[in-house]
């Protein structure tokens, strides 16, 4: 019995420590919003090839392989001869995560819109149609996962185009 009593102050201290949340959780893995300038988020255009940073889904069409750059656009890879496969360019599409192609028209999500892009000339993609506000889109307030810490959103920095995993120091927001 005495042995247990001896530990009571330590247990009490531990309990007190647990109540003290003012200092935050310290360094934790969580999520941070990725911002873009609201006026540019609907601009779809061809740019030169760039390194892959956040590799997304892939799609194959007539010798070309497309890979989503999560939230930013689509890498275009000429893979007609797979041993010599190489990037030939990039299509900027903010908020994009999915691709589908039929008859030289690429369908993708641009934030919460569905857009069609004519790619018959692959280096001159031409947006042809847009269905506005059809998908839920990226949350402007919290990341798409439960029970995680995240960097609070500052609307002054622009529109949130995605959420990325990040090491956070005493984050103030949690969901």
């Amino acid at each position: 019995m005495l042995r247990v009593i001896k530990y009571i102050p330590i247990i009490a201290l531990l309990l007190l420590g647990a109540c003290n949340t003012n200092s935050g959780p310290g360094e934790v893995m969580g999520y941070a919003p990725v911002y873009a300038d609201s006026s540019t988020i609907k601009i779809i255009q061809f740019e030169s090839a760039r390194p892959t940073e956040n590799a997304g889904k892939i799609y194959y069409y007539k010798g070309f392989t497309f890979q989503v750059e999560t939230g930013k656009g689509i890498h275009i890879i000429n893979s007609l001869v797979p041993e010599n496969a190489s990037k030939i360019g990039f299509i900027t599409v903010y908020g994009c995560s999915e691709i589908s192609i039929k008859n030289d028209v690429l369908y993708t999500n641009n934030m919460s819109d569905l857009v069609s892009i004519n790619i018959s000339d692959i280096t001159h993609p031409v947006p042809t149609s847009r269905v506005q506000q059809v998908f839920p889109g990226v949350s402007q307030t919290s990341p798409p996962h439960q029970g995680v810490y995240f960097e609070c959103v500052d609307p002054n920095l622009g529109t949130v185009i995605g959420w990325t995993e990040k090491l956070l120091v005493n984050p103030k927001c949690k969901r």
Partner: protein
Amino acid sequence: MKIPYKYSLLMAALAILLCFGCSKNSSSTDPGLVSNTGTGGSLAKFTIVGDYMYAVDGSNSSYLYAFNISDSSKITFVSKTYIGFGIETIFPYNNKLFIASNTGMFIYQLNNPAQPVQENYVNHFNGCDPVVVSGNYAYLTIHGGTRCNGSTINQLQVYDVSSLYYPQLVHTVNLDNPFGLAVHNNYLFVCDNGTGIRTFDISNPMIPQQLSITTGENFVDLIPIDSILVCMLTDGVSFYDMKQPENLIHLKTVQ
């Protein structure tokens, strides 16, 4: 509110089945054979069948969207059907959509392509999963993790879907942490993260037999095209020669 909605869906399904039941086989098309449509991986949330593009969103309560794309300069949103919680992937096969969720697999029929109708739902343990279908069998991987309801199950499951009304789980293979998968002829390829691509012989489609593991890259998903395997990596794309599926030969990695 929910029960009458469910019944109305059921009644609609019954009505459509009664109307189209006889012509079901003649109307089936395999989108993979339509050369003007490209090919996505098993993790896709967009897919095209005929003049329609279908999408599932990745939100907590997900819908199945149908768009008419017969005129690409004027795509039109035609319907939105509530599916359920944690929808992961969509796979078209034989005029059906196989939709994988955190809790199971939904099968939607496209007799009226503008309005997909749920034909069945198979429950499995919690976990994240894509599904692909070949012949009478659906192959589905389940992986665990905190984002997947905290599941610790990592498996390949084989379902007999010859009767779409009574899909039967016929076989399971324990894996490490599987993601995307693809079927090509008599072979099944499964990305088992941290381990590589597992090649299975599915000459007996019910019981996949592992032939080899190809390691060296962090594979997430796969698209087989003729004799080439296009692989989604965590940091790019790579291409493999699969003339001998048990002996994949690396051709190029693009990052």
